[in-house]
């Protein structure tokens, strides 16, 4: 492992409403990146904001030595990230965390993503490169959808939902997912998105008895497992639940073990 590195930004562009795609020259990160892992980025241009921002890896190319992320502007840190220009440098730590784990005998995979949560599952779909990958992605509206061709290329079947129906199915992507689950069950589901979506998926995974991994978000400090600030409640036989570290024990957890109401 290496400490934080200054990585050159080679592209940063608006790809949907409030959503940016940023590419970094980061050979050390790219060489090790697995789907579901994240990089931990220092906020540029404001030294009063100490904490790094965790952002999932959207794509990584070992050969060309780049890493891509997709992020949504939600606060001042992501706003400053959105203002970064080609040629600027970002202070990056990573890749961090445990990624999704897909065993060799997986034949049929569902990946489900909502909003910026679609980014890490795209990376998973494109890396676990066997036929039988269905990708479900949901957005508020067509304005918020991004990089659809990339998603198309990363799976065998792409299903899209928007809440206003401007693209794809009108409604929630979890509705589309449930329709599919009624018809055919995958060996594994991987999901990332807002908490209500994750809760719905957790319930479906249980109902349809599909193994499922969830990528969780939580406010973080160190990102490496040392400070215990990024807690999420995980079922435990003795104690009811224990707190695990999203950064190091996760950010990917088995759906059956996480308690989304405690987190």
């Amino acid at each position, binding site marked *: 492992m290496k400490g934080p590195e200054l990585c050159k930004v080679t592209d940063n562009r608006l790809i949907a409403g409030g959503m940016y795609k940023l590419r970094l020259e980061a050979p050390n990160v790219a060489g090790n990146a697995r789907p579901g892992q994240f990089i931990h980025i220092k906020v540029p241009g404001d030294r*009063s904001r*100490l904490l790094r921002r965790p952002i999932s890896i959207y794509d990584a190319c070992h050969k060309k030595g780049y890493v891509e992320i997709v992020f949504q502007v939600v606060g001042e840190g992501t706003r400053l990230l959105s203002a970064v220009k080609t040629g600027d440098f970002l202070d990056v730590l990573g890749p961090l965390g445990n990624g999704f784990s897909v065993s060799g005998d997986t034949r049929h995979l569902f990946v489900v993503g909502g909003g910026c949560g679609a980014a890490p599952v795209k990376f998973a779909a494109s890396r676990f490169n066997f036929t039988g990958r269905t990708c479900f992605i949901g957005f508020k509206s067509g304005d918020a959808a991004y990089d659809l061709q990339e998603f198309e290329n990363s799976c065998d079947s792409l299903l899209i939902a928007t809440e206003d129906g401007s693209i794809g199915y009108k409604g929630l992507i979890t509705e589309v997912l449930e329709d599919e689950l009624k018809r055919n069950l995958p060996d594994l589901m991987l999901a990332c998105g807002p908490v209500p979506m994750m809760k719905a998926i957790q319930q479906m995974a249980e109902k349809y008895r599909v193994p499922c991994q969830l990528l969780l978000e939580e406010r973080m400090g160190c990102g490496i497992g040392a400070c215990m*600030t990024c807690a999420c409640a995980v079922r435990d036989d003795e104690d009811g639940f224990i707190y695990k570290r999203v950064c190091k024990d996760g950010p990917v957890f088995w759906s059956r073990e996480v308690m989304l109401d405690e987190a």
Partner: protein
Amino acid sequence: MRHNMEVAICGIKFKNPVIAASGTFGFGSEHAGYIDLNRIGGIAVKGLTLEPKKGNQPPRIAETPSGMLNSVGLQNPGVDYFIEHQLPRLKGYDTRIIVNINGNTEEEYCMMAEKLQGKPVDMLELNISCPNVKQGGMAFGTDPDTVYNVTKSVRAHAGQPVLVKLTPNVTDIREIAIAVEEGGGDGISLINTVLGMAVDAKSRKPILANVVGGLSGPAIKPIALRMVWEVSKVVGIPIVGMGGIATGEDAVEFLLAGAAAVGVGTANLISPTACIDIVNQIEEYMRINGVEDINELTGGLIV
């Protein structure tokens, strides 16, 4: 020219004055992936309790201007687990191990100190910022008499030198420090975090599930420096100074104000290499300013 970076605290030699502060460095294993632990002066491990502790509900961290709040709530596996599982690996490193202990009662502190007797631990750090159950939840560290008593009892049960770690949330830090010295404490570490709070104007909610938390980082450096300075004027025992140290110059400021060594906390969360960066920057400062022995700096403030 060789610079001497070695300091002695309560008779224990540290190869340099940089100690990873409790709660920001776990039990060393995560940071070991990024830095050579043999190169830092010491490690104060994550605060331990007699029994394992779950910790508080998340969110447990909030960013504030040049600082952060945490409300981890002492999540830890308990002192027995530590002795059995973490200590064996830690003692393999050539650095000093300081064990941070936290009790709900005086007896709990003493029981923990006893369990650590004869173990490969260099020092105990008595964290007296936690709620004192017997005194109705008031923190141990805010009343001189309680501080005197708990220091004295633990001192009697401890096999290693005892540092007492003070909370800054008091009217007069000097009287607390004097109580430690009178109670037989071997040294003082300060400061722990300052009680604070963060609010999200949009959601109208506190950011921490626990509502309040401990403020740390550069924002509190002026408070910490002032307390180290005040305490160094009234006690003779050594001080480990901390609060917002992010660079070698910050560390030197604490030494000048009267600290014999320094703790680095929040900086470890910003960069896992912080402790080593700070060791290197102190050495650089010594080189540029012709300081041959780091001990010259302690208390060297010109007023």
